[in-house]
């Protein structure tokens, strides 16, 4: 469990990543289309982290970039496409051609991974659901198995809990005590934060007092390890109320990522380290 953040402590993103994300860690950067923590991901790459297990329901561009940069040894995910556009070419190149190095894969359905985070947040060893029966996903016996209901005898799918070493999310607001508020499509962020040993949040803005908002998620400062102010830290994803999704960049990424050289040129232009062994 994280130690309580001293009230009012807002740290620099570079310090938060340096302190809380280590080589070999299991790292979840969550945000379901909305509020994807791109700026934090880029800081992880700039600091040269290696051998990470990356967990995320939808790898999206953010993990395509980290995988291409050679940050990850393993990927745990449930849908690895560029939504509405097509393939994630760096993910595909890693799995199909081991570039820049081999990438091990564990895969779930959305329901499976969402429940694995929920079990992790509850500090339970596994979650129960009806899905998976008859699919080949069930062959991954180290993460998906079955259990018999003790009350009805029904056979159900069991999915192993996911407990990241560190979860990173982006949110709209922090208050001066370092409590965090997010709204709009809030995905699986609450579960991913509470499942993790440490949690880092980047926010658009710090305010004296949170506004009234229907359906908002509020995370108390004592479940967070660091809060960092990073305006537009979700670009090219978006933060409802602050920015809109840069759909043009999602389209352009297809051409950038399709080719190793154009990807590496993009990485150089954006001051992101190339893979050491690329």
């Amino acid at each position, binding site marked *: 469990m994280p130690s309580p953040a001293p009230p009012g402590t807002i740290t620099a993103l570079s310090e938060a990543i340096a302190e809380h994300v280590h080589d070999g860690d299991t790292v979840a950067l969550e945000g379901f289309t*909305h509020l994807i923590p791109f700026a934090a991901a880029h800081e992880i790459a700039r600091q040269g982290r290696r051998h990470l297990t990356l967990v995320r329901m*939808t790898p999206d561009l953010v993990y395509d970039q980290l995988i291409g940069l050679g940050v990850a040894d393993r990927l745990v995910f449930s849908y690895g496409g560029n*939504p*509405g556009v097509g393939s994630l070419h760096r993910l595909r190149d890693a799995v199909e051609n081991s570039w820049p190095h081999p990438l091990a894969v564990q895969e779930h*359905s959305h329901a499976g991974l969402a429940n694995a985070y*929920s079990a992790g947040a509850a500090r339970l060893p596994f979650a129960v659901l009806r899905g998976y029966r*008859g699919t080949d996903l069930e062959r991954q016996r180290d993460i998906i198995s079955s259990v018999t209901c003790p009350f009805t005898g029904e056979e159900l799918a069991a999915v192993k809990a996911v407990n990241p070493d560190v979860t990173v999310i982006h949110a709209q607001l922090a208050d001066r005590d370092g409590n965090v508020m997010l709204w*709009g*499509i809030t995905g699986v962020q609450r579960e991913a934060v509470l499942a993790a040993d440490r949690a880092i949040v980047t926010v658009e803005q710090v305010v004296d007092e949170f506004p009234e908002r229907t359906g908002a998620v509020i995370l108390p400062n004592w479940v967070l390890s660091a809060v960092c102010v990073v305006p537009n830290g979700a670009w090219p994803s978006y933060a409802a109320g602050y920015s809109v999704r840069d759909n043009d960049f999602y389209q352009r990424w297809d051409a950038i990522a399709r080719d190793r050289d154009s990807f590496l040129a993009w990485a150089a232009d954006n001051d992101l380290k190339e893979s050491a062994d690329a």
Partner: protein
Amino acid sequence: MPEWDSAEMMNVAAARELHDGDVCLVGVGPPNLAANLARRTHAPNCRLVYESGAIDAKPRRLPLSIGDDDLAATATAVVSVPEMFNFWVGAGRIDVGFLGAAQIDRFGNINTTVIGAHAHPKVRLPGAGGAPEIAAAARRVIVIVKQSPRTFVETVDFVSSVGYGPTGRERVAPGAGPTRVITDHGVLEPDPSTNELTLTRLHPGVTVEQAVATTGWVLKVAEGIQEVPAPTTAELTALRGLRNREASDA
């Protein structure tokens, strides 16, 4: 009658499968187009649910992703992803789920995961996403997929979502399974006794021979095969307006 192409016919035929008032789980791509087309034509009261958590979304333009802010902003409720899959999809509150496929077999089993072996795939596809639970729990599943011998295969390389199982008799899930497969050639439906996908309708201008030639198994053809009505001017106007991302009045 205006000109139209086979992709438009496929979108229109898929949209017609939605009934007014249906609760429809919408995924990215052709399903998104079909569901929004239905809402703008014959099924204005169908309820769109997006797996990102938006319930009763009323998008003013065709959303480009399933997580567009317009979906959350126009929804009756926005729930978390675990809640969506546990309380809404898994619990059986979805009438219709639309699915796509990279491969589909004669019993409606779907592969969206890999071409080749899972450990060393020839082609790494996006993966399962929300589809396995939609395939299991939606009351009706409508698959939208273009017909080709590479897609309509004897055996799928990986079962991502279950239709009727390896021999058509293994389905245990609560929903009815793939009740329609809408292609660019026509419509396939499971045989009532064997669950084998059978060609029951053809789009205008398509022949049985074309449908058979683009199927990687020996395609069963129903007796008295019917023709799908061509897209109407209203359907085409709405479809093209959606694709051009024109705003609706609603």
